[in-house]
């Protein structure tokens, strides 16, 4: 478990003070995959670095499994760091050493016996799917492979926490997916708590249980990924959500809807879980005297739960439309009028 209690980080730049973090309160429960998202300069890197004390918080405390790191000596900090693996955007491997040596490094530092190192490194490389690359050097590998080496290295000391610093930001979408799958596997098989920072909402959607949105060194919104994606509150959060679940209507369509004679109303319907599977739209159209025109729709998956989003134009008599809406709500579908929203 990682707890941030009023964590602040102030950098001195000449006479100016830069407040990278402004009182962060967050709790990452054991076994969770917690994502922190923010634009660059929001304070993400500072935040993740306070966990292993690469950055000392100026105020507040960070507790790892209930232990306040700031009370520890530098030797104790080094010990606790072995329990906190970290992977990086640019991998940060030793280019002068083989893949094997890179993964073995944390074990060498811990003075593990040579025979144990051989075995453990082999197992780790097997786990990340690079058993046949042990003798190569990092510059002979692709970005995705380098990150796998980074992951194997981070796992070498059997940590209970893994920090991911923009771990997929330098990778193409397909490789990103495979690395995220690997992180998911690590989380499941070893029950390792993962704290990741990213600027890509796709990463959050793909693997996180919980998410916090960081802006100007403050957490502006947090919750389960499902809550935040289905009902974002802050403007920044909405922008992030929209970056992966685009529900904006094309310009041409908007112009058509807003022609003067049009008195149709537009609704947004949100389906979650089982309701995705029910043919509500066609039934409503049949049962009531309304015409439905689907303007936009998508279905995605959040944490293994299907989540659909439809923007539908209703036309017909007001009374009929109202009855239709009630019927839709009875099917556990969230519906709200967005006529003005889309304008």
């Amino acid at each position, binding site marked *: 478990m990682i707890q941030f209690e009023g964590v602040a980080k102030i950098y001195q730049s000449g006479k100016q003070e830069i407040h990278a973090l402004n009182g962060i309160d967050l709790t990452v429960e054991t076994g969770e995959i917690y994502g922190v998202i923010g634009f660059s300069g929001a304070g993400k890197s500072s935040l993740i670095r306070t966990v292993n004390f690469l950055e000392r918080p100026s105020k507040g405390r960070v507790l790892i499994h209930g232990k306040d790191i700031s009370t520890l000596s530098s030797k104790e900090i080094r010990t606790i760091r072995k329990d906190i693996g970290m992977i990086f955007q640019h991998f940060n491997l030793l280019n*002068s050493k083989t893949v094997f040596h890179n993964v073995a490094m944390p074990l060498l530092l811990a003075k593990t016996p040579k025979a144990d190192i051989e075995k453990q490194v082999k197992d780790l490389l097997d786990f990340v799917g690079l058993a046949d690359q042990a003798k190569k050097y990092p510059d002979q590998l692709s970005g995705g492979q380098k990150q796998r080496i980074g992951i194997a290295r981070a796992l070498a000391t059997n940590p209970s926490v893994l920090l991911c610093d923009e771990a997929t930001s330098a990778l193409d979408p397909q490789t990103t997916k495979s690395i995220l799958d690997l992180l998911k596997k690590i989380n499941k098989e070893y029950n390792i708590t993962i704290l990741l920072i990213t600027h890509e909402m796709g990463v959050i959607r793909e693997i996180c249980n919980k998410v916090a949105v960081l802006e100007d060194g403050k957490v502006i919104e947090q919750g389960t990924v499902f809550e935040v994606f289905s009902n974002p509150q802050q403007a920044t959060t909405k922008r992030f959500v929209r970056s992966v679940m685009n529900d904006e209507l094309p310009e041409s369509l908007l112009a058509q809807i807003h022609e003067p004679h049009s008195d149709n109303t537009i609704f947004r319907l949100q389906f979650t879980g089982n309701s995705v599977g029910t043919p509500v739209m066609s039934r409503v159209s049949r049962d009531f005297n309304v015409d439905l025109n689907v303007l936009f729709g998508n279905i995605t998956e959040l944490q293994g739960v299907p989540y659909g989003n439809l923007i539908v134009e209703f036309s017909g008599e007001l009374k009929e439309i109202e009855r239709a809406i009630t019927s839709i709500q009875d099917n556990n579908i969230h519906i709200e009028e967005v006529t003005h929203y889309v304008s």
Partner: protein
Amino acid sequence: MSVNYDQILEAIWETIYMTGAAFGFSLLIGFPLGIFLVVTRNGHLLENESVSNALNIVINIFRSIPFIILMVAIIPLTRLIVGTSIGTAAAIVPLVFYAGPYIARLIENSLLEVDKGVIEAAQAMGASPAQIIFRFLIPEALSSLVLALTIAVVGLIGASAMAGAIGGGGLGDLAITYGYQRFDTFIMVITVAILVVLVQGVQSFGNILSRRVRRS
């Protein structure tokens, strides 16, 4: 009286001896200094402003004295250490004072080239400062360190020739006393040619070694 074959051989040996010994001692002084220059920097492993400032000032002072003046200026110290101010052994002392700080700077430069991210990864692994220096910084910089030290050796060969001017022996001595003062153009050409070959050899060796240690 002309120079014979043996004299040239002896001069070559003296140059190699001066350069080698001076390089060895300079490395002993310069290498740790270079490491300290890096790690005491602002934001580095063992950040320490006063140590960093002091080191920089001292190194800059030695680096700003022209070798020919340094050589004369530390004659009392040379006498104290080797008992004489003339000869090959005596030439080594100013050479060390010249090359030590130079090597410190070269080492500093090479170590600074190491990606900050690698150091961060080392810290995140729980490596101690000593482990970071010896297991991360130096291995990652090794190839560049070898090239930097090659520059130092070439510089020392040149400086050792200059040390010849105050009777230090070696190829420089030969070129000055016979080639210059006795107008023996042939000797002048020969010594220069030997120096060129020496420097080429050292540089080629450095290049090969640097490539070899890029991956260890």
